[in-house]
């Protein structure tokens, strides 16, 4: 399972992977991430949702 997730994560873009790791591995809030990467919270949430959707599709296969 872990390997599957790692493989799926590798298929995300660098920016998506960076943000997903900050969010779920380091428990950073969307607000914190937004301040780290200099964007707004909505944009962060969009990227996270897009990444989650991608991961779901990849893991489904």
């Amino acid at each position, binding site marked *: 399972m872990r390997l599957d997730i790692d493989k799926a994560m590798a298929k995300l873009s*660098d*920016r998506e*992977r*960076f943000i997903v*790791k*900050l969010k779920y*591995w*380091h428990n*950073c809030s969307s607000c*914190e991430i937004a301040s*780290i*990467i*200099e964007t707004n919270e909505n944009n962060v949430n969009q990227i996270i949702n897009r990444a989650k959707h991608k991961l779901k599709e990849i893991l489904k296969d």
Partner: protein
Amino acid sequence: MKTSCPDIEILYKYLNKSLPDYEKIIFESHMADCDACLEALVIARKLYKDKILLQYEPVHKWQVSQEKNTGQFCKKNIRSGKEFIHRINAFMYGFFNSKDLAYARIRSGEDTDNNPYIKIEKKLDQFTISMEIEKIAHNSASMHIGLQSGYSHKDVFSVILTCEDQTYKARKICDGKAFFENLPFKSYYLTLTQNTNEKVSFPFLINEVGLYER
């Protein structure tokens, strides 16, 4: 492809928003694949944002004697990037290697004959709390808590330390002081009560490196 790990100056520039766009892309790409650097970034950012903890110097053994003589922890405002880099560098060094240089590293009495304590002051509303922490075993510390301002003899003050596993220890503050012994390295929630009314609280973590606000 994983690039080489960025040095501390790049990390500082990234946190300081002064990294050029093209370098930022390289930096973020590296962070996506290097867990150690990502962890360093998260820690460094917490430190960078914490204005109070940033006032404290990394602890060197030779500074400890000053601490005992003056009764106060040596404070220094960190303003320039160079000093910041020094601090983060020292912190990272301590964090990853657990060697001498570290940020607010908890020391045991064996480390120095002069004063084994780390003293941190924390301002919470109208109260100023000092915390003196001494490492007493490989996985635990004792803590003296002092109420520096806001204390009055007319009121009954208590400190409650709630651990992450929901166990708690409570101490009445006598003459502005309370003592907790044998605190395992864990996350805690400090609550100050005045006449049983909860006044302020402060979440923090103690580990073998030091004390961190959460």
